[in-house]
């Protein structure tokens, strides 16, 4: 299930968005955050850093991925049809205490190489979703609970 959003913050704050938790996440060998149609400035190298709020109210790191700039003088935007992050460990940890959660709020922030928020940077993403990778066929019925 997709949840479309046009994330575009230019003040450096994280973009919050809510994605459905795949029903069978605990049976998956992999959990991925899939961002589609990501657009970032073509002249700024950046990382998209994802966090979530734990049950205890603490901000927890979920994953991060680097995007090189096209060129330092590039005026065109850098359009990425698909950006994927492996969030298996972090999401398992996050959901372990609340296995029946239907959705999870993730926050994505564009940061620089030192993980500092980049102010006045506009970026967007058309859809974001969590995707799971099932076990091989011969393991299909041995779900990891």
């Amino acid at each position: 299930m997709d949840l479309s959003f046009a994330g575009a913050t230019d003040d450096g704050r994280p973009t919050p968005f809510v994605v459905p938790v795949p029903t069978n996440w605990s049976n998956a060998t992999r959990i991925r955050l899939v961002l589609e149609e990501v657009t970032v400035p073509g002249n700024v190298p950046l990382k998209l850093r994802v966090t979530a709020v734990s049950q205890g109210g603490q901000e927890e790191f979920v994953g991060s991925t680097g995007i090189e700039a096209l060129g330092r003088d590039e005026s065109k935007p850098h359009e990425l049809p698909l950006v994927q992050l492996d969030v298996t460990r972090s999401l398992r940890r996050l959901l372990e205490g609340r296995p029946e959660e239907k959705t999870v709020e993730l926050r994505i922030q564009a940061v620089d190489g030192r993980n500092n928020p980049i102010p006045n940077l506009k970026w967007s993403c058309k859809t974001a979703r969590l995707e799971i990778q099932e076990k091989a066929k011969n393991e299909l019925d041995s779900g990891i609970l």
Partner: protein
Amino acid sequence: MSDHYNELITEIISRRRFLQQAGLISGGLGVGIFGSLALPRAALAVCEPPGSPGTPQQWRMDCRPIQTRRPASTLNSEEIQKLKDAYQAMRALDTSDPNDPRGFQRQANIHCWYCGHGTQVHGSWNFFAWHRAYLYFHERILGKLVGDMDFRLPYWDWDASAHRKIPGAYTSPNDASNPLWNGTRGMSATDEVPDEDVGQTVMEAALTAGTFADFGGTVTSSGIPEGVPHGSVHVDVGGDMGAFDTAGRDPIFYAHHSNVDKMWSDWNKASSTHTDPTDSSFLNLTWNFYDENKVWRSITAAQVLDHERQLRYVYGPSTFLSLLPCLIRWIDIRPEWTFGRAFKLTAAIESRLVQTLDKGGGVRLRIRDMSVPVDKSAVYRIYANPEAAGADEGPGGNGYLGTFAVVLNSLSDQHEHERGKLKERNTRNVTINASKPIVESLLRTPKGLELTYVERGAAKGGARPTPVKAKEIYFSIAEVTKEM
């Protein structure tokens, strides 16, 4: 941005404008003519195609001795000097013969051209194979320039926690007298690549990716490691390294990509199922590079897959790979258990489970061929004993171990079942990922484990908990440290 850089860009733009006015910069004709021009020095900074040197010669079988690419941090002073001499000689060609395709700037422009301006090898299954080929020819050129064809590139092993800084050879001296230095870096000599970009979680995700599509991408998408750790390290170093068109201008690029290449090699080694694509559309991917003798050569993806046999290099030992089997190999522990009796753990097993979790490993409780009801689609919860199942406190509650679902294929299946015709299998293999609270809950059961399941929420309505019946119940553990 430096004044020198601005001047260069101005010159480039002027030259581009001139070429555009002359109608030479777009289309194959423009490329061909431009490729045969004698380039002024400023044009070296332009991201242009490598020229039109005619039909490339096939890559020829490499018969040099197999040598080891080693971590940059382990090079001795003599080896560091040779590395610096090689890059010094490469940089010198930029001045002495700007047309020499082996010059440093021309080498950097290869990345620029293949990474957006001419074509794009990022974001697809070209990524690992193209960069391996690029580094291979780059390495041969460096070797030729120092008269040592046994020269091999070092790699920056940022995945080792002690080596998160840019290797010393590339920052000392930290000025233009060092041919491995680059003044545009955002990362100082004392900064470190953040753990979240290259640490164990990232490397484990990369090296345990199940298929090449996940690891190295497909025709239209990248594998996960291309973003992190690869892309993140580019961003972390910053400056020239942060952008496709300039990344090759920083010598650390080649040490970084050598480690990225090693990651591909390690992924291949991590499992017999980690195989490269066999599709001819992948194997026949073809790219052209100048070799150390300025011969224009073509090489295919198929020709770079076996780096040891074909390209004559191997990598030093992998810190992470030596740990990996312990992370992914699950060892079964079978306590004495008889059908219908409580499942008791010995002190030795209890201690091993706790120690495994304390050291960051994993514990799973496995139930083989567990009988399950198949009269309807429903969700069931498993508890450590009947009392806990009766209370049915759910996740986090007393004795709760996990949840499993029985999903009939369709309503018609359910009706079939009611008519007694359903051939639905009534056993399941169930695996419970046993976190620390779950293991502690298991250990707190004095009478031993009497695994019991109950339909979710139904116990409160009077439904009876059902004892688990299975062929076998046992634990699997994955220890992070070496085997005991």
